[in-house]
């Protein structure tokens, strides 16, 4: 087990190098002249100015020289003449976002807790209900619940998120104002700026609970429920499909008949023998869903005006803010790698064939 985890951990830097190489490589598909546009504010008056920018930032250096510089930054004198490091994503310097008027790393710091907050509240209903429906559908194959779950699964996977989101907004916000878009009500943000409200984790709902402020907690939930429903209904549809087919396959396995022939209760046969085996492909898919949630759910966050990573990426993309997009892409890559690591380790816990090989 320890061996297995160490081997997986050793892979992480390799994967990270791969991710950064690909992302940087994509940027390099643009020529030096095009990339020089990222460094100037005004239109250059002549070609000489462009050449000067290219020369100053080494935009026509060999690929790996530029890549290395991008990773570790360069040493430059600052206004006082001290030598300081400039740039370098390894030091967390992803550049400056001109559209958001802040460092990209600050965008991540400000927005990611919101995405995490939403993901936290989505993962539990997403997994528990989705898996429950899938197992129940498989056990009652071809009966009413199964047919209903299958119809739902088809509708859920084919109904576009933005349409569903807009419908929710219309029903639950425009008509009734039961639930709200955005992140928090004005009075909450005033409270936070006043400093009275201690931000332990920067996850609003968790902080509200830690401050014992149920009114703020309710406000946070009111803003998150519509995105939670939207995210859940798609995930449920896919989880039902995968869990159901995996469970049906498992129920046909010989060891399920063995379990029955031992005289076990049908509930034990399903819960102790069939379901743990059926969960293996579901865990793999779970990894993908969690990456999706943490890496920013662009459409859902945009529809509900929820200030998370996905909304930030959408805003940056709409304004052709290449620097921000690159920074967020690397951050998403990092999340992907970490989530896959977690899934692999989780997999080893469930499946002894992985753990002990």
């Amino acid at each position: 087990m320890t061996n297995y985890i160490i081997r997986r951990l050793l892979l992480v830097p390799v994967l990270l190098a791969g991710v950064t190489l690909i992302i940087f490589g994509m940027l390099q598909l643009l020529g030096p002249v095009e990339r020089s546009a990222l460094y100037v504010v005004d239109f250059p008056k002549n070609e000489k100015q462009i050449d000067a920018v290219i020369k100053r930032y080494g935009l026509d250096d060999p690929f790996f020289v530029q890549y290395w510089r991008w990773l570790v930054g360069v040493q430059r004198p600052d206004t006082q003449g001290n030598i300081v490091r400039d740039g370098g994503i390894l030091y967390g310097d992803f550049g400056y976002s001109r559209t958001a008027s802040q460092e990209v790393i600050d965008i991540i710091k400000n927005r990611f807790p919101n995405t995490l907050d939403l993901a936290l509240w989505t993962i539990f209903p997403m997994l528990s209900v989705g898996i429950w429906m899938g197992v129940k559908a498989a056990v009652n194959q071809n009966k009413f619940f199964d047919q209903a779950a299958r119809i739902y699964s088809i509708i859920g996977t084919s109904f576009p998120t933005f349409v569903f989101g807009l419908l929710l907004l219309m029903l639950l916000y425009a008509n009734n104002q039961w639930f709200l878009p955005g992140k928090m009500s004005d009075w909450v943000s005033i409270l936070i700026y006043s400093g009275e409200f201690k931000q332990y984790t920067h996850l609003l709902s968790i902080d509200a609970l830690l401050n014992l402020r149920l009114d703020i907690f309710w406000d946070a939930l009111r803003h998150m429920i519509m995105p939670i429903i939207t995210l859940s209904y798609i995930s449920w549809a896919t989880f039902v499909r995968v869990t159901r087919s995996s469970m049906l396959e498992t129920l046909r396995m010989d060891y399920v008949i063995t379990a029955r022939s031992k005289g076990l209760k049908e509930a034990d046969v399903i819960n102790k023998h069939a379901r743990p085996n059926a969960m293996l492909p579901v865990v793999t898919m779970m990894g993908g869903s969690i990456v999706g949630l943490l890496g920013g759910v662009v459409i859902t966050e945009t529809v509900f005006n929820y200030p998370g990573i996905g909304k930030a990426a959408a805003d940056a993309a709409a304004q052709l803010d290449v620097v921000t997009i690159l920074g967020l892409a690397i951050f998403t890559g990092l999340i992907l790698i970490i989530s896959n690591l977690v899934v692999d380790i989780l997999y080893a816990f469930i499946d002894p064939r992985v753990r002990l090989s």
Partner: protein
Amino acid sequence: MTNQLLNVRGLETQFNTPEGIVHAVNGVSFSLDEGETLGVVGESGCGKSVTMLSCLKLVPMPPGKIVAGHAFFKGEDMLTMDNDEIRKVRGAQISMIFQDPMTSLNPVMSIGKQMAEPLMLHLGITKEQARNRSIELLEMVGIPQAADRLKDYPHQYSGGMRQRVMIAMALSCMPQILIADEPTTALDVTIQAQIVDLVKRLREELGMAIIWITHDLGVVASIANRVSVMYGGFIIEEAPVKDLYAEPLHPYTIGLLNSLPKINREERQRLYSINGMPPMLFKKPKVCPFAPRCEFVKDHCWQENPVLESYGRDGHRVACWVDVTSGRER
């Protein structure tokens, strides 16, 4: 007469498939006495396994359905028992081992846990007692370092070892009947022999009755007292093991025995095989199901399905219109 343990009467099982209803078992009757070993032979798809699974209501339902018959275990019909009642029979009084030991153990549960389940369930003993009993059982079936191997998972055992575990688990609650569904088919020849010897030894020690399903006539000869031959969802011949091999009365049994390679046969002779294919059971056979492949076939065979009747020596029963010794209709 010794005590009758199992008495199956007129069992019929069907499967609903997208292509239509498959009549897998079409009225099978047999019985099993205390301490007896019954061999059930027949080719793949003849209904051997489904018959035995049906007795314990282990046929997956749906698509399977037991449409008729009774399966009396010590006088009580298992087919009319509710789920709780039959669960007390399964594993405790009648247990099963299966064809493929690679797939019949749960891959994500340790051997010790899988073995403890029936012990704790049927004998009501504690985890610790179940553990000790499991070690004894594993030693009984010849697994070395049994105590250390309880925490291992099925994939850490070889095929033969897994089948030994299955046997140990099946016998853990001292059942009166062990149903072995082709337990040696998936194993290589030397391991097959070991498993057969193991079951014989355990039969001596524990005295349970055995139903041994197989398509290997050699294995049956070495282990069974009595043999039933199945074809197309029917039992077509039933006899004490010696009589069956000495004077088979059904053309199908004769064909089966002739298709065995013989050690004293002349070289370069083609091995005998029965012509044609086993029947597709989308319709319940109304005439003799073997008629299309039979070398002795008469007009009567195409009109009526023969029933199992006594002929020849005591206890020898056959379902055939033709007397194979004379080649004439009975």
